[in-house]
């Protein structure tokens, strides 16, 4: 009998131990930011969020998913701020009443990476659409995100410009991974495929193998990030005041220079361009 009681008290202690977890860090106030894998995996948030927290005492919790999923989560009211990179989808989000207003924050650019052996002969090109057309013509492997993310949308726009119908090639030389940027780069490195990546994720990516940048510098590969406060009128649980404080800070002189000061191996990853 005593053994059973001891067992029960063990169970109880495990249960009680978990109870306060949900609220343990709530004291200083926190906000939830729906954002993308590129901002998280590149280490940008680890660089700027402690600065914001030191200044305001507000803890920022980041959920990093693809832009498409981030926007859907925010449209469900599951987040206070949306920080992504797909301008037209962001404008739709605001127009639907889910967001208060959209502001430009920063940009970087996309690059086409590929195997050093360069089977399609595109290395050094600066016309992205022409390079993609050549990859299609050569039937060289291309790893696509295929996940409705900001990068995926940008890639599809480039294919449209190049006049290649990738849906017809799906499963042949055109491989849709349906996963995040890093997972797609892992695939590309493993099978020797080309891929479109944002430069920040590429620079900080740790498993490059013999993959290198093949195409860069095309103005259409410009990658703009925007920030939006989720609309508290439509989603009453949104912490409007704290969220607005974060938006204001990111757009402020301090926030913008914090973004500019982040670099890996001497390379700046994001270029602030908020309009003030």
């Amino acid at each position: 009998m005593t053994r059973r009681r001891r067992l029960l008290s063990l169970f109880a202690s495990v249960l009680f131990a978990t109870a306060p977890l949900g609220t343990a860090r709530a004291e200083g106030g926190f906000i939830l930011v729906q954002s993308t894998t590129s901002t998280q995996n590149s280490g940008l948030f680890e660089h700027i969020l402690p600065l914001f927290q030191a200044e305001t005492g507000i803890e920022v919790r980041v959920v990093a998913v693809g832009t498409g999923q981030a926007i859907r989560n925010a449209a469900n009211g599951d987040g206070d701020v949306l920080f992504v990179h797909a301008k037209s989808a962001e404008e739709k989000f605001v127009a639907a009443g889910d967001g208060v207003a959209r502001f430009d924050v920063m940009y970087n650019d996309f690059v086409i990476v590929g195997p050093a052996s360069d089977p399609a002969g595109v290395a050094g090109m600066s016309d992205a659409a022409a390079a993609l057309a050549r990859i299609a013509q050569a039937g060289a492997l291309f790893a696509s995100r295929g996940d409705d993310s900001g990068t995926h949308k940008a890639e599809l726009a480039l294919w449209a410009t190049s006049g290649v119908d990738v849906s017809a090639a799906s499963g042949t030389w055109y491989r849709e991974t349906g996963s995040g940027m890093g997972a797609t780069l892992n695939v590309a490195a493993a099978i020797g495929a080309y891929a479109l990546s944002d430069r920040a994720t590429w620079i900080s990516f740790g498993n490059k193998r013999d993959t290198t940048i093949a195409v860069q510098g095309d103005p259409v590969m410009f990658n703009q990030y925007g920030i939006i406060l989720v609309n508290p009128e439509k989603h009453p649980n949104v912490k409007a005041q704290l969220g607005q404080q974060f938006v204001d800070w990111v757009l402020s002189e301090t926030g913008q220079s914090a973004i500019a000061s982040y670099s890996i191996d001497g390379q700046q990853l994001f270029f602030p361009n908020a309009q003030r």
Partner: protein
Amino acid sequence: MNGFSGVLGQAFGLILAWDADLVAIIGLSLRVTLSAVVIACLVGLPLGAVVGAFRFPGRVLADLLLNALMGLPPVVVGLLVYLMLSASGPLGPLALLYTPTAMIVAQTILVTPIIAALTRQAIRDLDREYDEQFQSLGVGPVARVAALLWDARFSLLTVALAGFGRAVAEVGAVLIVGGNINHVTRMMTTAIALETSKGNLQLALALGVVLLALALVVNAAVMAVRGLAVRAAHA
């Protein structure tokens, strides 16, 4: 990549360094997983015992359902729990999304059918053995279930461990409902997924070795308790 010895070296390095972040991640993994297993046992053990010990109409269907639910896909469970806990879902006002509690809920749903289905089988085998005795002694249904559960307790420990194994290795559900938020809902499996997506394959593998070591320690602890209990029972 320095091969497997490099991975093992880094794993030992991680454990020896006892980094505060890693300790928090291990602690969260243990608390979420063990809580889910305990709750799943509270529900699944009696449920499995009842289905196993009695004949009733629809028992075959109940067997089938319990067995099929063992194969619940974690991502689907994650999505369902997300839709329930989302601010625009029915349980939104509880504000549980992206908390450890949400992860416990999702894992409990995943683990309960495993506990129930395996308990049912263990209890049924035992019940066949005890059936005549129960009948001759005129044992009531509640006492019958209690006696069966008690006498099967050592095999049920293994059942609980099977549930723990499922929960501790699971990533699909906790990633969706927890959000893998640093210092809040990041646990071993989601950290491994994150490092993989950063291309830090060696660190990801080293974390995997740490997770394996964790599972080893938990299993060893349970086996030790079981050994002591068996000795006490036969003393």
